[in-house]
């Protein structure tokens, strides 16, 4: 079996708002193996980005632990954390916002190396930055250009190069291709896959686009309103989804094929507010299979078959009846 690189236990992240506590991430547990890609999907406001940031401690979690190499990093001091940061990096969604418009491309890529004082002389630094630019497919002549002079795809390559600078083992990819055009999106996805093969990276790939997540991930976790509702390998989640939300989400994706006929589940209503959520299943209000029990008791994430977790009271029952309501 592969070894666990990261283990997240009962992680919670709440924000204080005027109207009460916002449960952005609520009691989430999972692990990521070394060298695998875990896809994290969900709609806006489900807490997937907050979770990604809390794991690498860009924001401090409210409760729970994140075990990285056997060490709970949520308890580390800022100074100790600075060393660990080298091993965990993040690539952001908007490559324009994640680069400082007043720094040229070389300075942007060199920044992590300078901050961590990796090299003592400039020649080594320069060599490393150029190597990174080669790795992500940026021409060396671009070193002096500024972000606004580059297109979205190249900017995102800078973002990737920056994240790679410190040779991390683990990378959080927060919607890295969502802001890009499809033809460029494919280039970046392929780049990320190549890098993973070559450098043995472990990814947490956050996206709202299920087809991209399915393409790149080994396992996929689905989040809804701060909760993880389903977690399994990429094939099972598409062929045999257990949670009604996963089923609805899958059926909602427009597919560019004419030969696939699907029955579409249209969810009623909107995602409710994550501020002071009601007891019971978070999805109860929109679920077509909802029963009294769902409104009262919160379902736990249970393992239904090896490696296939879902948080639904009626998962088994629905599976046996073929997903039909009574």
């Amino acid at each position: 079996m592969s070894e666990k690189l990261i283990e997240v236990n009962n992680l919670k992240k709440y924000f204080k708002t005027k109207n009460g506590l916002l449960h952005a991430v609520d009691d989430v547990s999972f692990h990521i193996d070394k060298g695998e890609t875990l896809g994290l999907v969900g709609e806006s406001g489900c807490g997937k980005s907050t979770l990604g940031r809390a794991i690498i401690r860009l924001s401090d979690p409210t409760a729970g632990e994140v075990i990285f190499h056997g060490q709970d990093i949520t308890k580390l001091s800022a100074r100790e954390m600075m060393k660990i940061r080298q091993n965990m990096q993040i690539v952001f969604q908007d490559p324009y916002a994640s680069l400082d418009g007043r720094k040229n491309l070389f300075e942007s890529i060199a920044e992590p190396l300078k901050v961590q004082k990796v090299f003592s002389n400039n020649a080594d630094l320069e060599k490393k930055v150029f190597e990174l630019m080669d790795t992500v497919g940026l021409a060396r002549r671009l070193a002096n250009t500024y972000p606004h002079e580059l297109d979205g795809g190249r900017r995102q390559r800078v973002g990737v190069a920056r994240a790679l600078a410190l040779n991390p083992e683990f990378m959080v990819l927060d919607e890295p291709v969502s802001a890009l055009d499809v033809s460029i999106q494919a280039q970046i996805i392929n780049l990320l896959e190549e890098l993973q093969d070559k450098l043995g990276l472990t990814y947490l790939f956050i996206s709202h686009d299920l087809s991209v997540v399915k393409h790149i991930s080994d396992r996929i976790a689905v989040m809804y309103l701060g909760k993880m509702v389903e977690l399994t390998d990429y094939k099972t989640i598409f062929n045999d989804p257990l949670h009604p939300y996963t089923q609805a989400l899958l059926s909602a994706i427009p597919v560019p094929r004419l030969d696939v006929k699907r029955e579409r589940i249209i969810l009623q209503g909107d995602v409710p507010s994550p501020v002071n959520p009601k007891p019971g299943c978070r999805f109860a209000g929109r679920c077509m299979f909802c029963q009294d029990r769902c409104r009262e008791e919160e379902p736990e994430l249970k393992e239904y078959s090896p490696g296939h977790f879902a948080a639904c009271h009626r998962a088994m029952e629905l599976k046996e009846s073929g997903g039909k309501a009574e």
Partner: protein
Amino acid sequence: MMSEDKLLEIKDLTVEYRTVDGVVHAVTDLNISIGKGQTLGLVGETGAGKTTTVKSIMRILPDPPAKIVSGEILFEGEDLLKKPESHMREIRGEKISMIFQDPMTSLNPTIPVLDQISEAIVLHNKITKQEAEQRAGDMLELVGIRRERGSDYPHQFSGGMKQRVVIAMALACNPQLLIADEPTTALDVTIQAQVLELMKEIIRTRDTSVIMITHDLGIVAEICDYVAIMYAGEVVEYGTLRQVFENPKHPYTVGLFGCIPDLYAEDDALIPIKGLMPDPVNLPEGCRFHPRCNQVCEKCSRERPHMVEIEPGHFVNCHLMVPETEQGGEQDV
């Protein structure tokens, strides 16, 4: 392109933006048409000229810098480009209306939604305020919002609900042509599904023609009858949904399909299109796609290709194509 009842026909439209950096060739020699009750998908990446095209139909291009250099836009047989502005104002909203990408910015935050809808109705119809409000309420119900919520302000609605209000507003005067510019891009998948379902329903029941701008081929497959693929200001492929999706011919169209991960295929290696969109100030000679094309031949960098009808109603703008009448066997792409 289609012989039956044409509602809108764009002929040889060329639009440029004259900026300090040079002339941006936004749209070049564009020909498309749409019949009554049909839905046309306009597909392309950023900078393909989709929005410029529909803004020329509405005549809402910022001038300067935009300049319609040549072409005709025939709506019910009349050239919109020759109409005086006062006449255009009557057409906008009443006969042609538009839905924008971002529902947040298309609504006035200080006016209750019902009033915003009835305002549009009163503007184009000689009816009393009560009648207009009655009709606005009907429109809200049509898009699945309870009438009572009409007195609410836009911020009290969620993103998906706001887009429903925008759709209600666009349909309030029963336009013959509805232009939707990426209407669901800002929405979540499950909300997008709701809005698409609503639009399908409207198209089916109201006999409205729709031009749907999108970059998502999945949405096109779902609601369009015809597809026009745009690249760097030109239509590179045009045909019925079935023709373009089952038998894509232009290397760019083929490339686009290769870039999208397939949910239903086991092995779905992505085949990206190499390179980047060309600079619209400095477009490549010959075929505009040739620097990125994987089947480029010597002719492509010299000569601009022409639209070739490879089967009835299926047009491709590529040198590789041979017209149906001349060809022995179809060239495979």
